[in-house]
């Protein structure tokens, strides 16, 4: 006997097409002002991103990972979260932090390598450098919420590269077994430094990996803010109502280099990048507003100026902060520092004093 015992499919969602035209049957439940709010945040992200890049070039912050081109993917998804939901980023989620209300100056301070910027009770985990490993602790966080019967969900962000790590697969498996209230949000920006999608993934889509673990999965146009919002909102509702995990593949593009230490022109062509310029997410929303007649250029200018001001203020504030001292090195390694660390801190403090730092 030889039968097909299971059939699977992969779903794709897009609300706004490249021209900013909406598929009304798929419109999410968002008021006009809410969409404008989302737009404002995306511009803020873009401005912050530009200025952070320049700060790196002037030696004022360390290595920085741009989010240019991924504004819709980040803002659209984070916009759907409640305050008490948990957010686990990788290292390219500046847009998510902004949408979640993180103080703007702290964002700049974090890229200056100042660990104090991450101190918060916001349920945003700090930036995670090791790729993919955050999917596992995100699953653990979701698990705890479920064990306590809480309604909070967890979202974890990662890139296409992370889906090659073993940790990612273990996380999906755990989440599937226990029907954890978690959203696995993959920003597939097509590149892992120089590794294109075809060298990174054996599968054609990331979304189909959900099938292997029998969890919900969907691929969404990552440059479509409304589509991203809708897909994420559905996943959040599913998780909150006990429906288990969702894997969302947000198809977008990394317009900039991997980080400020990278030079993408070594491995990809201008033409490739230009293809995606036409899909610019911020511009797409502007097109949408024009299409429905709620745009005017003054508004656009006002948004831009307001964002520039906000970011400039944040930068000034962050740059004025004195750099951290010996306390930060020792005080948070343990809940109560053991004898050795107390002694070592004294040695460092003495040295700092003597060197006049």
């Amino acid at each position, binding site marked *: 006997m030889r039968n097909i015992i299971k059939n699977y499919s992969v779903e794709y969602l897009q609300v706004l097409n490249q021209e900013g035209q909406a598929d009304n049957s798929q419109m999410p439940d968002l008021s006009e002002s809410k969409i404008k709010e989302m737009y404002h945040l995306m511009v803020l992200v873009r401005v912050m991103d530009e200025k952070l890049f320049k700060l790196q070039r002037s030696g004022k912050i360390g290595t920085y990972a741009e989010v240019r081109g991924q504004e819709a993917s980040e803002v659209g998804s984070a916009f759907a979260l409640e305050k008490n939901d948990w957010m686990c980023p990788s290292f390219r989620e500046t847009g998510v932090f902004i949408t979640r209300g993180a103080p703007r100056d702290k964002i700049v301070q974090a890229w200056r390598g100042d660990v104090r910027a991450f101190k918060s009770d916001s349920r945003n985990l700090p930036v995670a450098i090791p*790729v993919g490993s955050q999917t596992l602790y995100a699953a653990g966080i979701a698990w705890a919420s479920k064990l306590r019967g809480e309604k909070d969900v967890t979202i974890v962000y990662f890139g296409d590269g992370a889906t090659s790590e073993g940790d990612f697969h273990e996380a999906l498996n755990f989440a599937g077994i226990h029907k954890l209230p978690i959203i696995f949000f993959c920003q597939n920006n097509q590149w892992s430094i120089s590794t294109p999608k075809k060298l990174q993934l054996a599968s054609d889509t990331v979304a189909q990996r959900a099938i292997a673990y029998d969890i919900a999965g969907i691929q969404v146009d990552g440059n479509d803010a409304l589509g991203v919002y809708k897909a994420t909102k559905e996943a959040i509702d599913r998780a909150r109502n006990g429906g288990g995990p969702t894997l969302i593949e947000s198809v977008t593009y990394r317009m900039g280099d991997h980080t400020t230490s990278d030079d993408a022109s070594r491995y990809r062509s201008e033409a490739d990048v230009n293809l995606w310029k036409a899909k610019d997410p911020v511009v797409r929303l502007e097109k949408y507003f024009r299409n429905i007649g709620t745009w005017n250029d003054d508004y656009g200018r006002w948004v831009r100026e307001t964002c520039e001001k906000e970011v400039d203020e944040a930068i000034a504030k962050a740059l004025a902060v004195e750099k951290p001292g010996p306390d930060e090195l020792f005080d948070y390694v343990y809940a109560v520092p053991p004898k*050795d660390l107390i002694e070592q801190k004294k040695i460092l403090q003495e040295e700092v004093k003597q060197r006049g730092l």
Partner: protein
Amino acid sequence: MAKINMVQAINEAIKSEMARDKKVLIMGEDVGVDGGVFRVTDGLSTQFGPNRVIDTPLAEAGIIGTAVGLAINGMKPIVEMQFIGFSYEGFHHINHHVGRMRQRSEGSVSCPIVLRGPSGGGIKALELHSESPETFFIHSQGIKVICPSNPYDAKGLMISAIRDPDPVIFLEPEKLYRSFKDEVPEESFTVPIGEAKVVRTGKDVTIVSWGAMVRLCLDVAEQLKDKVDIEIIDLRTLWPLDEDKIIESVKKTGRAVIVHEAPRTGGYGGEIASRIQEKGILYLQSPVIRVTGFDVPYPQFALEEYYLPNAERVIKGINSVMNF
């Protein structure tokens, strides 16, 4: 003779070995088209093609694990970890298989890989980009661990490592990748594994160090040259340890200071100090002092200058053995 930096030296070593031996291949993230994030494998992909210069997916366990298999079946893989701190993602392979394959099979199969990557700090990099994990590898057993401090040694040791029948972990101090140039012969040459080098002779104090810290110690020795005569031993190979050279030096000077970036407790300095007192206690004038990082995880880079050993701390270490 041409003066090149460490990146170029390692590039030359890998290139010459890949040309000489078809079994040698290099695999890792972004090593091919991009030439590596530090450009250590620049140009290799063009010369040797995608079957020998392999751009892998983002999967350290996968990279190390498959490399073990490649090595068992006759290839000589050079495995790049983009930053050595990322090797933790595949550490279980290092411990489960890399160091054990030969012993487990009584020599029937072995694992001659070279696992290399940027290590150590000092360039204000992001978290986990500045690790010094040498003791984890040494303590796993069955593996050789190398850390050069200059372009000449880097080239010679890399060639030796690739030719070595045992697995070698090659720690490349990222601080030293481009910070200076050295005269390095264009042709292939080897530097023996397991041999330390006295890079500065002296009669008052022995400093034992490796990697970027060797440069720091040379600076300090130069600064203090009118007050104290410092002998500096660059280990070059951390394991197997060239104990004899260290003891010979301590017999002469009677004073030892060990300098390393890794945190103090459980750091390799403890092992070296222990051997010095075992074999040389009757020659010691003072306790053996270690100048190391603090017992904290390597911090975010705004605190880097507090964490790393610096001239101040090395001088204080020398003071304490001289003033005992």
